């Protein structure tokens, strides 16, 4: 078992991102910035039908358009498209406009088919089937423990609720895409990805070339959040266009495309009943839920009830449980991983019903949670957070805030894994004292690059900016994809091991007993001409898994207009040994802002008549702006003895739940659907005029 030194000087400090200058000057090259010689724009032609049998896609005219160098059909022969936005063909040309013009010259023969895009309609047995051989609604996954009915019968308090969460779209600021160069010598792909090796694997298999012939480079990328693992259909099409045109093709999706076909967070419709004894100890939980993962759901999808399932009753210990979860297929883009898959959905239903129970029992919501949450870590976090937030002073019974603008508070907890393993790395120490660390990980914008520098600097007694950090290239030693909050826990131990080995080697080779810090340059000089290299890998003992995290929110709700303004979010988060406090805190800020979007703004709107996404842009798919962001306070609960644990996901889980609970606490009525818009607040309060109604 390896272990971190007791005394750490760089690790745990606040190191500014080593790549800030490159980013602010534009020197940093994102996948969308690279311009290899002769490159062309690529663009995708998509289905304009939510469902259709496509008999022919003809790109001949498109191929002959001015400036167009290649055009490919996504697949030959007759096929069925099942959502608006499904890929049908792609073109490459010398300008965006040339491609846009060519897309309009593509001819398609198709027979439209019936479709359904609303979850509740899709459940009906007579609804059009997304997949012909199976009903849209899958058989539910059922889990049962104890005697639920008996426990409810004996419960002192029982509460019921119906909660819904929307499909949330993936909108990283850098859209999905790649620049791909396919030549006889091999394939180079500059990818906007969370996993350079998974892109390599995907492209090699798609093109049927050996993996060693495929090089994937991700120097910088603009966010993925779970949606950028493989090359994607767009990556494959870019490769084929490059093959056809004989030059590199850059195919970055448009913001419109993003709303259709890059994955999303599934929706949920959760019917929940929760019972407790007179002391507030939970005795029974009953859930019947469904949701959609788009076309990748329902009875026809692998895993039956999978796709939009989520943990229930989430973080709480309940002796008697009955959970029924089903998915329903609709004619819409498929879901994929989305920052803490399942958890924000699970948290919203469960934490909402917990507050309903607290209100019924006339119990403090924090007290009810601590009583039923078996995690000792979260119990401590609630204590720390409640104290700092002033919970005891701020919490008032629901709806008791005076005046038309009411103030309320809420809280919620989260759990996540965050473990990681398997990374490898190498170090090269040069006789002039310069040192290079290479690792095939990638920086999603979370600060991974800086983290590599921090760990290396710690071991060598140097400053992070003295380390040359090489990441984001499949020519470097392999590391895993950056998903599941695994990167820190996987990469940091590998860097620590590599640098420790390198330091030992340096000391052995040069005879310098301690080559660190002030002795570094002198020791390196003794190497002579050849640099020293060392290889290392992830070791047990330097990282672990399993975090908690709790958040508190304070909101004001204008009961006349329904407008919710979040005043403050306080987060108490553990993540083991903190590698870099600054980027850890900013990562959590980002998670909270994303949770704020889920709470108040974001929702994919499908139109039942046309089957289209109605809000495929930032005008109507609403993301938080800076003006919406509240005062955010992060308290990191340091547990260095646990080693490094990832924190990218847990920090976004409880935000929406805490905000929703604060809204309910303010107005005394629960808005049980996300996002909590003025419309929903006014409807829940009974103030909105009913359809067809007049004043």
């Amino acid at each position, binding site marked *: 078992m390896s272990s971190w030194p007791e005394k750490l000087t760089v690790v745990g400090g606040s190191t500014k991102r080593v790549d800030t200058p490159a980013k602010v000057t534009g020197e940093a090259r994102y996948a969308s910035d690279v311009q290899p010689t002769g490159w062309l724009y690529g663009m995708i032609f998509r289905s*304009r039908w939510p469902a259709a049998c496509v008999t022919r896609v003809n790109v001949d005219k498109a191929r002959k358009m001015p400036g167009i160098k290649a055009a490919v059909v996504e697949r030959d022969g007759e096929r069925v498209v099942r959502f*608006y936005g499904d890929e049908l063909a792609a073109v490459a040309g010398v300008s965006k*406009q040339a491609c*846009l013009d060519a897309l309009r010259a593509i001819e398609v023969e198709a027979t439209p088919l019936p479709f359904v895009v609303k979850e509740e309609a899709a459940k009906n047995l007579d609804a059009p089937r997304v997949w012909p051989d199976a009903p849209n609604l899958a058989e539910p996954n059922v889990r049962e423990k104890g005697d639920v009915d008996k426990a409810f019968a004996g419960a002192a308090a029982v509460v019921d609720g119906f909660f819904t969460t929307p499909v949330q779209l993936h909108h990283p600021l850098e859209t999905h895409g790649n620049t791909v160069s396919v030549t006889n010598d091999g394939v180079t792909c500059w990818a906007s990805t969370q996993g350079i090796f998974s892109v390599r694997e995907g492209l090699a298999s798609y093109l049927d070339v050996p993996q060693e012939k495929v090089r994937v480079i991700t120097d910088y990328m603009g966010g993925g959040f779970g949606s950028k693992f493989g090359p994607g259909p767009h990556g494959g099409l870019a490769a084929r266009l490059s093959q056809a045109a004989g030059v590199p093709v850059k195919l970055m999706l448009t913001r*419109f495309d993003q709303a259709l076909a890059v994955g999303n967070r599934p929706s949920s419709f959760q019917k929940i009943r929760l019972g407790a004894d007179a002391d507030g100890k939970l005795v029974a939980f009953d859930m019947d839920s469904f949701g959609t993962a788009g076309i990748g759901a329902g009875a026809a999808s692998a895993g039956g009830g999978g796709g939009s399932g989520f943990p229930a009753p989430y973080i709480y210990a309940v002796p008697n449980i009955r959970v029924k979860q089903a998915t329903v297929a609709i004619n819409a883009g498929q879901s994929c991983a989305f920052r803490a898959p399942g958890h924000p959905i699970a948290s919203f239903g469960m934490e909402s019903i917990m507050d309903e129970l607290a209100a019924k029992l006339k119990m403090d919501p924090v007290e009810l949670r601590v009583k039923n949450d078996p995690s000792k870590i979260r119990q401590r976090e609630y204590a720390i957070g409640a104290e700092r937030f002033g919970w005891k002073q701020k919490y008032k019974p629901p709806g008791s805030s005076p005046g038309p603008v009411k103030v309320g508070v809420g809280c919620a907890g989260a759990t996540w894994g965050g473990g990681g393993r398997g990374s490898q790395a190498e170090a090269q120490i040069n006789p002039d004292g310069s040192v290079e660390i290479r690792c095939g990980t990638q920086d999603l914008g979370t600060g991974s690059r800086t983290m590599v520098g921090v760990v290396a600097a710690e071991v060598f007694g140097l400053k992070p900016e003295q380390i040359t950090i090489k990441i984001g290239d499949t020519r470097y030693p392999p590391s895993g994809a950056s998903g599941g909050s695994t990167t820190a826990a996987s990469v940091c131990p590998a860097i620590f091991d590599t640098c420790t080995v390198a330091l030992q080697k340096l000391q052995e080779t040069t005879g310098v007993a301690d080559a660190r810090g002030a002795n570094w340059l002198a020791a390196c000089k003794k190497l002579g001409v050849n640099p020293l290299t060392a290889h290392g890998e992830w070791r047990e003992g330097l990282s672990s898994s399993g975090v908690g995290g709790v958040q508190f929110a304070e909101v004001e709700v*204008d009961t*006349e*207009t*329904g*407008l919710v*303004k979040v005043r403050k979010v306080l987060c108490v988060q553990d993540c083991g040994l903190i590698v870099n406090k600054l980027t850890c805190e900013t990562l959590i800020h980002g998670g909270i802002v994303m949770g704020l979007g889920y709470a*108040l*703004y974001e929702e994919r*709107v499908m*139109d*039942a*008549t*046309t089957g*289209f996404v*109605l*809000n*495929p842009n930032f*005008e*109507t798919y*609403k993301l*938080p*702006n*800076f*003006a*919406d962001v509240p005062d955010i306070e992060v308290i990191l609960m340091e547990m260095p003895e646990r080693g490094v644990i990832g924190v990218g996901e847990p920090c976004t889980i409880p935000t929406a739940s805490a905000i929703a609970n604060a809204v309910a606490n303010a107005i005394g009525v629960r808005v049980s659907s996300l996002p909590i*818009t*003025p*419309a929903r607040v*006014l*409807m829940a309060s009974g*103030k*909105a*005029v*009913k*359809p*067809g*109604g*007049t*004043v």
Partner: protein
Amino acid sequence: MNPFQYASPHSVDGAISQAGDHGRFFAGGIDVLGEMKEYIASPRVLVNVKDLPGTRDISAGKPWTIGANVTISEIEQHAELKLVFPGLQQAAAEVGSPQIRNVATVGGNLAQHSRCWYYRHRDIQCLKRGGSTCYAREGENKYHSLFTGNPCISPVVSNLAVALAALDAKVIVRRGKDEVAMAIPDLYAKAWDNPQAHNSLGPTDLILRVQIPDDGRTSAYKQISEKASFDWALVSCAAAAKVDGKKLSKVRVVLGAVSPVPYQVQAAHEFLEGKELNDDLAAHASEIVLKDAVALDHNGYKVPIARALIRRTLKQLVG
């Protein structure tokens, strides 16, 4: 977008003749370029009107004159305008983002087209675009009208129109050889009746300037949006009145984003005339304004917002 010719005339006559029946005027470009990129509009010629003489000035007087090419930022930041017409300045400050306000113009803001998400969708040929159906009526209509005189339910979203209506402003439009002074209700009247109209302007009608009477009234504007910045109003409200203590006269109350026209009700103005404002009076006035509202499946929430905004905007008038 489709190819187009670009013209940059230096006279109004030149602009009008170059626009013809298949051209569009181009100032800030915020609205027309968006339509062109989505292939909603494909003008044969884009006529840059930014170089037309005398269209970039704000001049005090009776009336005040604001050129069509004055940017929204210039209104927002004009110190004197802010004192004389606070409602107009507040309406300007809520437009888009700073970047948009820096290029968007008064003329463009008034003449902008529907933001209905069916109308703006590249693959939907809705009623407003010459199709046969208003999809919003039975569909997703949370952002749509409570009042309309035609089957299309997309509302007017110009902030300035709402504020200028309250101020009894006149929009000076060049129509053929004549300069026509159109009150705000006239500027939008056609949109009330005609589902394909965004306003009453013909393809070669060009907004030259806006005249606002400086008649000693004060004004106010408020809106509620889902987001704190860079978002359209769910409902907006402008009011203007002569205020004597708490007594109101020459009152105007106008709602935006609830109708294809800036929505006002004469009976409400008459009701408020000469009365001292208090909460009950404002509430009563709001009921008069909202009397004919018809809620669709998803927009009934706009009624309580409008009610609150009318009360608050009137209250702001008396300080």
